């Protein structure tokens, strides 16, 4: 375990330092999803359920290729489907995007979580929920700009994609990556994946008539451990509502930042102030004086 704990660089609701803080690390891991070569086969969905031993849930048919409207507490990987008409030439595009936890470098879920050790970020960048420490408050749901954490209504514990941290720590790639038949999923270091994604986007721009092709690695959350290649990086919304400029909600930042600081100063200051007031002025009157006005026995 000592090696595993050393790999922890952020812990939710934690007082003091964390074991992996300030340790050296050569790379963070990253999943690359090339939406331009995804055929929506959902092999990754099945592989995710298989590896993580999640039950087959009921699907919701809506006359499209959509399996269900959104991820669930026990369904962490979902292809989002959208029929998009291109403005340029009126042609139809079938957009498929594999949706799961983005493993943000600055995770809003972790920032919002009050439970010590319920959410941790490893030094390799993986953000993982520790359900044993989860208290079921749902603050992570509020902190996440991607609508990913989902609560088990029965146990009140929150779940999401682990980026197969158990596989990655053994030197394997995540289950979804292994299952992809078109090779649209890649796994490696963040630098390698950014390089690969950049080359693919360049290819799309120069040879495939997608002048707006680009890489989705939103800076608002410090970059993500899951990046996309999009045909049109200027309109991420058309890919199943991928937010254009995701960031941790400013109210969450204000709550966990200045409000916390101000509140603590005010509470401690108030206690000290009242104590000093009592030392200086004391009680308004003694009870004895009330019983015997004037102090006569």
């Amino acid at each position, binding site marked *: 375990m000592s090696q595993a704990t050393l790999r922890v660089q952020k812990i939710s609701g934690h007082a003091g330092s964390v074991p992996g803080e300030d340790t050296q690390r050569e790379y963070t891991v990253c999943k690359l999803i090339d939406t331009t070569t995804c055929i929506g086969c959902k092999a990754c969905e099945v592989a995710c359920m298989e590896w993580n031993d999640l039950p087959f849930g009921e699907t919701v048919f809506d006359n499209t290729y959509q399996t269900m409207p959104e991820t669930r507490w026990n369904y962490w990987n979902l292809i989002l489907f959208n029929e998009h008409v291109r403005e340029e030439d009126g042609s139809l595009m079938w957009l498929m995007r594999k949706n799961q936890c983005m493993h943000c470098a600055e995770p809003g879920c972790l920032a919002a979580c009050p*439970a*010590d050790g319920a959410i941790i970020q490893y030094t390799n960048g993986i953000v993982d929920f520790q359900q044993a420490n989860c*208290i079921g408050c749902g603050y992570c749901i509020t902190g996440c700009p991607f609508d990913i954490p989902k609560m088990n209504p029965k146990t*009140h514990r929150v779940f999401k994609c682990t980026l197969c941290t158990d596989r990655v720590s053994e030197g394997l790639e995540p289950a979804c990556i292994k299952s992809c038949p078109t090779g649209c999923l890649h796994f490696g270091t963040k630098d390698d994946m950014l390089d690969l994604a950049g080359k693919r986007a360049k290819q799309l721009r120069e040879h495939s008539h997608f002048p707006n092709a680009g890489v989705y690695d939103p800076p608002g959350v410090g970059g993500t451990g899951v990046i996309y290649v999009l045909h049109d990086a200027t309109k991420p919304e058309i890919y199943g509502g991928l937010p254009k400029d995701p960031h941790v909600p400013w*109210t969450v930042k204000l709550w966990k930042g200045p409000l916390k600081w101000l509140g603590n100063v005010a509470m401690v200051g108030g206690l000290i102030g009242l104590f000093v007031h009592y030392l200086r002025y004391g009680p*308004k009157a003694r009870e004895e004086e009330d019983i015997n006005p004037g102090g006569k026995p």
Partner: protein
Amino acid sequence: MSTSEQIIPHGHVLRYALKERLTHWVAAVAYLYLLATGLAFWSPWLFWVAVILGGAPVSRMLHPWAGLIFFAAVWNMYVMWAPQMKHTDVDKAWWKAVRYYSTNQDDKMPPAGRYNAGQKFLFWGFFWSAVALLATGVVLWFPEYIPWNLRFLRYISVLIHPAAALFTVGLFLIHVYMGVFAERGAFGSVIRGDVSIAFAKRYHPGWYKEIVGQSSTPRK
């Protein structure tokens, strides 16, 4: 308030009827639990408080229910006291002289009624905070059922709930300080119900005049 059958010791007058005392203590016990568990969720340094109180998941489960009890008690206070908490000209003068009040020069204060202006501020502060805490607390109780396109409700709730709670902590600290330490006799009054005539004359002369004028057989 003076219709109780309770036996009042000589030289004392009834200040809080049993119903008022009960309501106060229901609110107080609920508030102390809410404060303890709320502070545990507020700061990692105080997370151990929730552990002592049966574990953080239990605290998370019971905090909203304690909130409902607290709100019910505050609502009962509103029903009982709202007419007595109206702002008057005496209160305006009281706020102008508040520096004398805070430095124990009570003889320089305008004659307060049953509640002085500070107590009225405390009441309305707690009342409106309780309303805000209830509204945002319901959102925080069931965040997973707030649809994605209404997520702003969660965003404002995580900010307003702790802000309103902090405001009540300020009110609470002053309330406990005044009731337990500064005004000797006040703490007993919310337990036993009565205060000495000297207490009534010193802190609430307007109220004392009122109850003496009301009673058919003048008290000594």
